C-alpha cells in the first residue's frame, strides 16, 4: 500500500516534469508572441479609447450613485440619556442643540427634567425630546409614548424672557403633569 502510494506520487512528478520540459522546448523553439499581442502592437488606439471610455463611464456611474444616495443628513442629538422610573420602565431623553458648544443651560435643564421624570411612578412616555430656542430662551419638551396601545404625543413650550429658565424646577414640571 505504502509503496504503491509513493510510486503514484513519483509517477505524477515524472509526468509533470515531462510536461514542463515539453512546454519549455516549445516556447524556446517558437519565440513569437501570441497573435493578440501582435495586434495590439500594430494599432493600440481603439483599445485605448475603449479603456478611457470605460473609465469615464465608471466615473459617471459613481457620481450618479453618490448623488442618488448621499450620506444621510439625519440630525443627531447633542446627547442622550436613559432615565429609569420607579416602575423599572426606561425613558430616553434626547437633547437637541444648534451647536456643539455652550449648551450648559440645555444640559442643566435636562438634569432637572430627568430628575422630575424619576419621580414618576409610571409614565406613558418612551422618548423625551428637549431643545432650547436660543434667541428667546424657549424650552421645548416633546414627549412621545404609548397610552392604552395608542400613540401619545405631547408638546410643552415654556418661555422665560426675564430669567434664563429660572422657573424650570421639579415643582413646575409636576405642575404641568410631566408624568402624564
Amino acid at each position, binding site marked *: 500500500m505504502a509503496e504503491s502510494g509513493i510510486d503514484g506520487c513519483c509517477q505524477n512528478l515524472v509526468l509533470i516534469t515531462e510536461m514542463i520540459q515539453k512546454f519549455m522546448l516549445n516556447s524556446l523553439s517558437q519565440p513569437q508572441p501570441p497573435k493578440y499581442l501582435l495586434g495590439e502592437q500594430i494599432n493600440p488606439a481603439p483599445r485605448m479609447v475603449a479603456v478611457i471610455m*470605460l473609465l469615464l463611464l465608471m466615473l459617471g*456611474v459613481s457620481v450618479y450613485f453618490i448623488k442618488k444616495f448621499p450620506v444621510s443628513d*439625519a440630525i443627531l442629538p447633542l446627547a442622550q440619556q436613559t432615565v429609569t422610573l420607579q416602575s423599572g420602565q426606561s425613558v430616553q431623553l434626547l437633547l437637541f442643540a444648534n451647536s456643539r458648544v455652550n449648551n450648559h443651560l440645555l444640559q442643566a435643564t435636562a438634569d432637572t427634567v430627568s430628575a422630575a421624570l424619576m419621580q414618576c411612578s409610571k409614565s406613558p412616555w418612551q422618548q423625551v425630546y428637549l431643545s432650547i430656542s436660543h434667541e428667546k430662551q424657549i424650552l*421645548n419638551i*416633546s414627549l412621545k409614548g404609548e397610552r392604552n396601545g395608542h400613540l401619545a404625543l405631547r408638546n*410643552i*413650550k415654556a418661555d422665560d*424672557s*426675564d430669567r434664563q429658565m429660572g422657573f424650570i424646577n421639579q415643582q413646575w414640571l409636576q405642575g404641568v403633569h410631566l408624568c402624564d
Partner: protein
Amino acid sequence: MTKAWPWLLLALLALVAVVNIYYGGQRQPRQLLLNCSSELYDHHDQQQSQYFLLLDLQASGHDALVNYRYFHTDGAPAGSVMMHGQITRGAAGVNYQIAISDKQEQLGDGQIPEHMQYLSYISDLNLNNHAVHPMTLEVLDADDKQQYAVVRVQPGNGVYGCRLQQ
C-alpha cells in the same frame, strides 16, 4: 473580449434605469400634512400665562403652507401667523427646506404669546431684508404606519411631536 463591451454597457444602463425608476419618485416632495399641537407657558414677572399652539404644515407638490395658530385656554384666538412658500426635500430625503415668500398675521384678544412675537419678529426681519424667510424642517423621528413625526423647526430650534399624514 470585444464582444463583452456592448453587454457591459447595456447592463450598466439597465442598472441606472432601474435605480432611477425605483428611487426617482421618492425625491419628489409628496403630499405632506403635519399637525402639531403644543402647550405654551409664558413667564412674566413671576406670573405664568398659558396658551395653546397649533402648528400645521401642509405641502402638496412644491407649495407649502405653514400655519401657526395661538389660542387662550378658553379657546379664544390669541393670534395667528400664516406663511406661504416653496418646499424642497433635502438630498437624503430626511429634511425639508421651506422658502417662505409671504405671510399674513392676525392678532387675537389679549396678550400676544411670546412664541408668536418671536416668530413674527424673525420672519419680518427676513422678509423685509431678503424677501424670503428660510425655514428648515428636520425630521428627528418618523413612522408612516404609526403616523407621527418628531421634527425640529429652524429658525428657533424648536422640537415638535406631530401627527403625520402622507
